[in-house]
Structures are given as C-alpha cells and as structure tokens.
C-alpha cells in the first residue's frame, strides 16, 4: 500500500502539478529576494482576505469544468450570499447562524437553477451562467434595496466584537487566528481542499464526475445519471461561492451586493492553470489549489515587491494565462507531430 502510494507520488512529481509547485517556489524566491518583507508571513496572512474567495471558488469550479461545463456566475453568488446574510440579520432580525444557513441554501438553489438548465435542457453552460451572473447579481441588488441601509454603504455591525476589540460569534469566521497567526480563512480553505480532494479523487461521486465529462453517452449506458451529476457540480459551486461570501462578510463586517464581482477572470485562470481540461474529463484539485496559490502569491507579491498597482493586476494575470495555455498548446502540438497519437473519428455536430 505504502509503496504504491510512493510510486503514485513519484509519478505525480513529473506532472503539471509539480511544475506549478516549482513556479510557486520560484515566486517565493524572487519576491523574497526583492523585498524580504514579503517573507514575513504576517503581511501575507493579513491580506488573505483579498484572495481566499478565488481559491475557494476555483476548487469547486474544477468540478464543473471536468464535466465539460463552465461557471461564470459564481462571483455574483458571492455578493448575493453576503447581502442575504446582511438583510436577513439586520432587517429580518434572524439569528446570525440561521442567516448563514439561509445564505448557503440560497446559493445552492441558484446553482441548482443554472445546473438544471445546463443538465436537463442542454443549454450551453456558458450562456446559462452568463444569464445567471446577471440574474443573481440583479437579485442581490434588489435584496439590498429591501434593507434600511443604503446599498453603497453595506450592512455592518455584525456580531460580535466586544468593547475590548475581541471578536466573538460570527466575526470569528473572519478574524480568528490560530496561534494568533494563521487566519481562519486559510484553515477553512485547507479543510475544503481536503474535502474536495476526497470528493473528486477518492469517492465514487468524483469518478462519476470524470466519466460524465469524458463521455456522457457511455456514462448514461453505465447507469450513471449524468444529468444529476452535472447539476450537482453547479450546486457545489454555488455552495463554494456562499462559503467565500460568508468569510468575506465576516472579515470586513460589511454585507454588500457587489462583493466578488471582479473574481471571474482569476477563478477561470486558476482552474485552467491547474491543468483542468476545459473540454472536460481531466483535472485535479491539487492542480487547482496550487494554481490558485500561484495566482494569489503573484497578486500579493507584485504590488509590494515590484510596485505594480493593485488596480493593475489583470495584466500579469492575463499574461500568465495566455503564456501558459499557449505554451501548453504549442508543446502538445509538437508532441502531436512526433508522438504516437491515435486520431479520433470526426464527429459531426448534430445541432
């Protein structure tokens, strides 16, 4: 068993994940050399909030992409969950934990609606989730108008911070630190990585996700309900977005409907960079997790080490995405012309 595991590990080291790990190490080396302050983990941890949503959501979008879909609505669900928590707590007066559960349920329903249309009505995931991103951000805005607090201000004053500045209750989700150092968001994130890893790579559900992504027809003939599997991945992403929304709200103590609206590029970049095939059937949680760390470290390191404006992080993100996918396309093309590749039959598009 153990040797098997080691063998598997050895094989993994030659893979894309290993390359990502190397990039990550290189980032630490370069950034650390330019500005030693970078290596002081405290500053890294203190800005965790800026990146954690991307890391969390991209884990779940990996599932969607393995089934051959795409989800560009997740970032609008972040704002929706935030505002649901805010309005149900401050204006409906519900218990904060009930509000959280409510927000998760709402997010899951949002995912289920889009997932239903993708899986059961065969609408392209790109359009459905585009519609979803309009719809859910719109609903979030409408919910925010229900509140007595003006939308632009954000609903604040969540429980609880004592007079001495000690966080309790809900705010712990945003402020608690292990050993006064490691923020709770990171701990939750690592928990989610483990859960997603088991779900995708160790469970029967995960195997079905892969099989549906590789060949939906065959999956159906194998007795796998491909519709339910596809729909479930969108629900999972909704829940992932909800978790991100909750953590963000708890940290900044402000529920706003437009939280997270700029995450889409980074999320898709993280998943693709992690080695997930956008046509489905291939991908890994570890890859996505490493890729999102690479992205986050870059977003964190460039401003403090190279003085890149935080408003201009799209440029390195874009360059990274383009360079890596183009590089991968070119190398696979080289392999195609020299390696042994069995050409698949051309399949005519039916509709």
């Amino acid at each position, binding site marked *: 068993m153990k040797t098997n595991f080691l063998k598997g590990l050895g094989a993994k080291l030659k893979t894309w994940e290993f390359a990502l790990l190397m990039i990550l190490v290189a980032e630490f080396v370069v950034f650390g050399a330019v500005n030693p302050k970078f290596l002081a983990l405290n500053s890294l941890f203190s800005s965790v909030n800026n990146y954690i949503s991307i890391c969390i959501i991209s884990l779940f979008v990996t599932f969607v992409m393995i089934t051959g879909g*795409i989800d560009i609505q997740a970032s609008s669900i972040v704002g929706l969950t935030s505002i649901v928590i805010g309005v149900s707590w401050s204006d409906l007066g519900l218990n904060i934990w009930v509000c959280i559960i409510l927000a998760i349920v709402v997010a899951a329903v949002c995912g289920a609606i889009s997932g239903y*249309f993708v899986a059961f*009505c*065969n*609408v*392209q995931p*790109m*359009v*459905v989730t*585009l*519609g*979803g*991103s*309009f*719809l*859910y*951000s*719109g*609903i979030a*805005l*409408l919910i925010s*108008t229900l509140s007595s607090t003006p939308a632009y201000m954000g609903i604040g004053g969540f429980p609880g911070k004592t007079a001495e500045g000690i966080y309790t209750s809900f705010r712990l989700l945003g402020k608690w630190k292990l050993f006064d150092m490691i923020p709770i968001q990171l701990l939750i994130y690592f928990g989610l990585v483990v859960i997603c890893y088991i779900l995708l790579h160790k469970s029967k559900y995960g195997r079905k996700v892969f099989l549906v992504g590789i060949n939906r027809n065959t999956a159906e003939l194998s007795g796998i309900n491909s519709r339910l599997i596809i729909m479930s991945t969108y629900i999972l992403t909704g829940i992932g977005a909800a978790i991100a929304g909750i953590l963000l709200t708890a940290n900044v103590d402000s529920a706003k409907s437009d939280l997270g609206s700029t995450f889409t*590029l980074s999320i*898709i*970049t993280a998943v*693709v960079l992690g080695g997930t095939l*956008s*046509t489905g059937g291939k991908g890994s949680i570890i890859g996505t997790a490493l890729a999102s760390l690479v992205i986050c470290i870059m977003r964190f390191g460039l401003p403090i080490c190279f003085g890149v*404006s935080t*408003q*201009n992080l*799209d*440029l*390195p*993100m*874009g*360059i*990274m*995405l*383009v360079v890596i*996918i*183009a590089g991968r*396309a*070119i190398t696979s*093309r080289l392999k195609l012309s020299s390696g042994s590749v069995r050409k698949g039959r*051309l399949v*005519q*598009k*039916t*509709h």
Partner: protein
Amino acid sequence: MKLKKMMGRTRWISSLVFLVALFLIVGSINSSFLTAESIISCLNNSVVYMLLAVGIAFVILCGEIDVSIGATMGLAAAMAGTMAQNGQSLGVMIVYALVLGIAVGVFNGIGVAILGIPSLIFTLGAGGILRGIVYLYSGGRTVENFAGSFTSLNNTTVFSGITWFFTLAFVIVIAVYFILTYTKRGKYFIAVGDNINGAILVGLPAKQTKIVAYIISGCFAAFAGIIFASKYGQVNIVAGSGYEMSAIAACVIGGISLTGGLGDVIGAMIGAVIMASITKILVFVGLSSDYNNTITGVMLITIVVVDALTQRRATESARRKRLAARSAPGASPQPLAEEVAI
C-alpha cells in the same frame, strides 16, 4: 404559413417581433413611452452595444466567443480620450482604433484558430492583458476634460433627433448584413460555425475565417470605444468592463446561437437595442434601475432555454417520425431523392 417559414429561416424577424411587442407592452403601461422622442433616445443609446454586439456576432457565428471586447473598447476609449484632449480629429482616432482592433483581432485569432486554445479562456486572458494596458496607458488616472467638440459629436443629429453615430452604426450594420448574406466570403463565417470539418472538406479557409472574425470583432469594439468616450466624456480604467457580457446577451436575445452557424447581425442589432432600452423601460413602468440585471438575466435564460427546448423537441420528433415511418404497417421504403414539391 409563409411568415412562419420566414421566421424559421430569418431568425432576426422573431427578435424584431419581440422588440415591438416589448415596446407595445411598455407603451400600454405608460403611453408616454411610445413617443418618437423616447424611442429615438432608446435607439441613440444603443449605439455602443450595437457595435459591440455586431462585431462579436461574427465570432459567435463562427462558433467561438470573444470576451476581450470590453477591454478593447476601454483601451480604444482611453486612446480616443487622450487624442481628444490633444485636439486630434475623429479621423485620426478611427485610424488608431482600426490598428488597435486589427492587432487585438490577430492576437486572439492566432490563439484560437492557429493554436486551437478554447476561445473563452484565451480571450479572457487577452482581456486581462488589454485591461492592464489601459492602466499603463492612462497611468491609472481617469481620462477626462476632452475638447467640447468631441463630446458634442455624440449629440450631433442627422434628422429629428437621430444622432450621427446611430445613423452611421445603422448603415454599417445593414451593409454588413448584406455582405454576410449575399457574398461568398460572408457565408464562410456561418459555414465554419455550422460544421467546421465540413467547411475544411469543401476547401473553405476555416482558420483564416476565424481570424477575420476576431479582427472584425476587435475593430467594432474599438469603434465602440470612440463613441463611448464621446458619450460619457470621461474614461476610467475599468471603462467597458462587463460590456462583453452585455454584447453576448444582446446576440443571444437577437437570435444568434452560441453553438455557431445560426443567426445574423440584424438580430444582434435588435438585441442591442433591447439591452440598451431596458433601463429606460424600467423607468417608464415605474421600477427602479436596480431591476436592470435581474430582467436581463431572466430574459437571457428564458430565451436560451426556450430555444434549446424547441430545438430539441424538433429534432426528437423528426427522429421519431422517421423511425415510426420505417416500422409502420405496410411501410413502403422511401425512394431516394424524391421530389418534395417546391
């Protein structure tokens, strides 16, 4: 019967019917909406969307997508703004916009058509790079204080309140429509989107067609940028973000299928008018503009779902009819190439 047949073939007619119905419904709630003035203002407001949607329509017809157009528009707008500050003429702006559009189009086209990278991902990356260039170009500052002559361009009218920009855009769209429908080359876009392997087999230059589509998309986005700058009088570093999504939505509302090969640019234009009118419509029916995204989302999802379901039903019933005919009692096998009355 004939109308139904026509609607089936010319998809933009159904979106025109939708547009008219929408306006009539709003008019019945608030009759002041149906005045020439407010309708003209809807049209005038739609120019930016219209150019974006018509440009991206080419890419979508080819079966690809381009989400970099928002950033392209932002960059073109920042460039146009800077030139306006320096008092340069519209002609120069157009030349620069053209160069920008071609450059972006070639970049995207190479990534998607030559390297075979999924278009959503590649153009997402390209969009990020362009957004970064906007920042570098404008130094992170909002470009504003243009010469008045530039901003007043947006309000120059041709007749009865219709602006120059709208007229120009309208003429371009109609011209493009005829080029697409009635020229050999124009049909390549639809052919490539309809069945790319079939297109290659009959000798169409599939890759070249896709690259051209991206160039057209880039150029239209760049032109939209000039109008954007003139219209708003200032360009910040995130100008145009989110517009790509609205343009795609406009195409879908206008009856263009995102699987490619189905739809036309007139549909995209009508879709753009609908998208641009939503805010105004909301005002007239007494809702706040907060409903904008919700309505867009509902409309978009409804249209694509209904479209997908009717299409599925049609193919399914055709298949079943064929199978039933084959096994019907005393079924006589269908002779080949039988005349089916013209």
